[in-house]
């Protein structure tokens, strides 16, 4: 892991504790619904899992958003401009901020995974490990694809850096991320099958869009977009 990616991740967390705290809170609600509640309401296992997914995914996404905020902050302060003068190019900057965002998302997912595995093992629910791993794989894919898409889109399109409602801490891109996850909060109210389908379809779609953005990144991301 390049040192600069770690530095960016650390700086992000230090700079925006509210978002990282919110991410942890949302992930905790998801973990509670995924790991603890089924012991009391086993019959509702399927619904609880479907309810846990958006919380755990949103937790991963919100926990990574300080990197996007740091990007805007560094851009406005002239830090990105200075990094280019140090020999980095726009691709280096783009990759490092993206990696830092993914790193944070991955850290929270690892916590979600570890807690689930610990609960499964110590509560004697080993039979459900594979079931849980399957869902956690979906959660990781969903969370990290949203993190990638939002981070890349925000760097590529300056218009997505505009603050929503005058709040500098909520660029438009973050609302976009929230909107991508939003349907999964209520879709289970209609049908289990549709909910699973939506939970699978959104990450596939967002993942595909992320790949497209990654391919186009060298054209979309110009140096002058990094200027204050």
């Amino acid at each position, binding site marked *: 892991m390049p*040192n*600069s990616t770690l*530095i960016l991740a650390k*700086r992000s967390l*230090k*700079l925006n504790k509210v978002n990282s705290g919110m991410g942890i809170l949302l992930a905790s609600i998801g973990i509670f619904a995924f790991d603890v509640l089924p012991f009391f309401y086993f019959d509702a296992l399927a619904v609880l899992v479907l309810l846990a997914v958006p919380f755990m995914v949103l937790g991963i996404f919100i926990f990574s958003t300080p990197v996007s905020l740091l990007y805007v902050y*560094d851009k406005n*302060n*002239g*830090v990105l*401009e*200075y*990094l*280019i*003068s*140090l*020999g*980095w*190019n726009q691709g280096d900057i783009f990759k490092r901020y993206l990696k830092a965002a993914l790193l944070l998302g991955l850290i929270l997912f690892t916590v979600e995974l570890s807690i689930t595995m610990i609960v499964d093992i110590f509560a004697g629910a080993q039979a459900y490990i594979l079931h849980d791993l399957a869902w956690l794989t979906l959660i990781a894919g969903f969370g990290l694809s949203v993190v990638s898409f939002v981070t890349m889109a925000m760097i590529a399109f300056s218009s997505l850096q505009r603050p929503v409602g005058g709040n500098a801490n909520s660029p438009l891109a973050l609302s976009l991320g929230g909107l991508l996850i939003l349907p999964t909060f209520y879709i289970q109210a209609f049908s289990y099958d549709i909910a699973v389908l939506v939970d699978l379809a959104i990450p596939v779609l967002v993942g595909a869009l992320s790949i497209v953005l990654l391919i186009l990144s060298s054209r979309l991301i*110009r*140096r*002058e977009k*990094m*200027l*204050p």
Partner: protein
Amino acid sequence: MHVLKLDNVTSGYNKQAVLHDISFVLKEPSIYVVLGPNGAGKTTLFRTIAGILEPYSGKILLDDQDTTTSGEARKRMSYLSQYNAMPEEMTVYDGLKFYSDIGGGDLDKAIELLDLEQLKNKRFSDLSQGQKKRAAMAKVFLRDSDLLLLDEPTANLDPSVSKEIRDIILKLSKDKIILYSSHNLYEATDIGTYLILIQNGSLTMFDKISNIKPKQYRVGIKASQDISKILDVQREGDYFVLNVSSPEEVGLAIKKLVENGVQVTETRPLDNPLQGFFETPVIGAEKTPKKEAKRDAK
């Protein structure tokens, strides 16, 4: 000996050219003052040389390395923008370490050079404007660069801090090429050896400052008595103002006063030789993109 060469460089923002066909070669280690009115393209010039803006046409070579495409070439220069470009949430030491971890350099030397020992454990956001500028400048001196690009390094600083910074820059100019932009004409004549004049995105003059001669000199004279009967002067405040066309005429005027028994207590030039460049209206200045004008104004 290092050489910076700009060859027909056209550059700007959003595909709109701000700089037009700029060409010059800097060979001699010295301070080259870049002068021009707001929106002329000074910052754009610095950003283009620093490789931050990619020129639409032309090339910028530092010892035959293209600064736009070569990260290695960019590592050989240091750029101080008008922004402090320091992570505000960090202490001065951590902020400088952040940059030295990325670009290398001697952290302790930079702290010593800019006298930051007392400030190094303070958060950057807690510093005064002058202290911030000094700390921000330190990052430029982390590495021993061949070329320094300093975009208004003393803007908004009090005179004593400005002088300290100018002294450091002057010391470094013995073996480096330094491009220095300023709005302060006295500072420009004080520190610079060469003048690069940018007007409306074009290079309109490149010469030694010592070669620049104004059409008229205004000299203020303080004397023991009214000298208006001896010389053709006007009274302006404490001074009798004499208009002459060459510095030699000042000597003759003083000689005449002394011969008439006048005691001359002070003579000083009232105008800066570079002042004329700012008084000339810039044709087509309204075509300068507003964004660039705003940036330069900052």
